[in-house]
């Protein structure tokens, strides 16, 4: 479970950063007449997004999420900045409750 959370977090941030670069650096450069950055970063994001989909899907299944939050998680990888927001929301709303119930606490809970 913790491994699935870690995989999801890493991919959420990596995919998110690449998408931000694509949208706020690559696209302006493309408009300015230098399409190389957008092309390369676009392909990289495409590949990363597939990995992100698999990681997010595995975590959603592990947490037993309903369809709606799962779709939000999966589509977040296509909207700039959204992965960061959704990652925080998923952590607060689903991951923390699940971990506090499943994993051994470092300190006994009172």
């Amino acid at each position, binding site marked *: 479970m913790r491994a699935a959370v870690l995989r999801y977090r890493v991919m959420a941030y990596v995919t998110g950063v690449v998408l931000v670069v694509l949208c706020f650096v690559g696209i302006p450069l493309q408009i300015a007449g230098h399409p190389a950055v957008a092309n390369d970063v676009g392909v990289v994001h495409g590949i990363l997004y597939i990995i992100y989909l698999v990681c997010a899907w595995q975590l959603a299944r592990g947490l037993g999420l309903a369809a709606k939050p799962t779709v939000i998680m999966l589509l977040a990888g296509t909207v700039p900045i959204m992965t960061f927001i959704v990652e925080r929301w998923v952590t607060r709303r689903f991951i923390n409750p699940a971990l506090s*119930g499943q994993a051994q606490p470092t300190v006994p809970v009172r």
Partner: protein
Amino acid sequence: MENAGPANAAAAEAPTPDGPVWHFLVRPRWLGWHLLMVVSFWGMLWLGDWQFHRALAGNGLSWAYTFEWPLFAVFAVVFWAKTIRDEFRIRRGEMPDPREVAAEAERLPAGVTGRVQAAPVQAGAGSPDEEDDEELSAYNAYLARLNAEVKDHGRWHGLR
């Protein structure tokens, strides 16, 4: 047959007051989901086809997307199938409803879940005069939690 009442439904279908379990699939909300699925599936295949023709026309970048779009289409179908399978399980009572579990988790204070509270305290529960010892009961809750975790091990097994 489609209008068969609960009495006529097969036992395996676990009839509810609303009829056989699968009837939820033809409710408006679910029909909307099915429609969205069909449209997005064909839409993604169409996009893949479009990229394929662009790639043939000499756009090397399009080769990546030629394979990516069909992959997304397949993924959507897998997602759809698993969601329906889960819904069947929830309605047959084989699986807790994630929406209810999430709602319950939100009502309880942080760090406490229904699962832990429900778990029996097995390891050496104290004598009655120790019951209100806060530290001991915290420790017992901790042991119960470990016990519950081992019991649920199978559920997370695939993820480790």
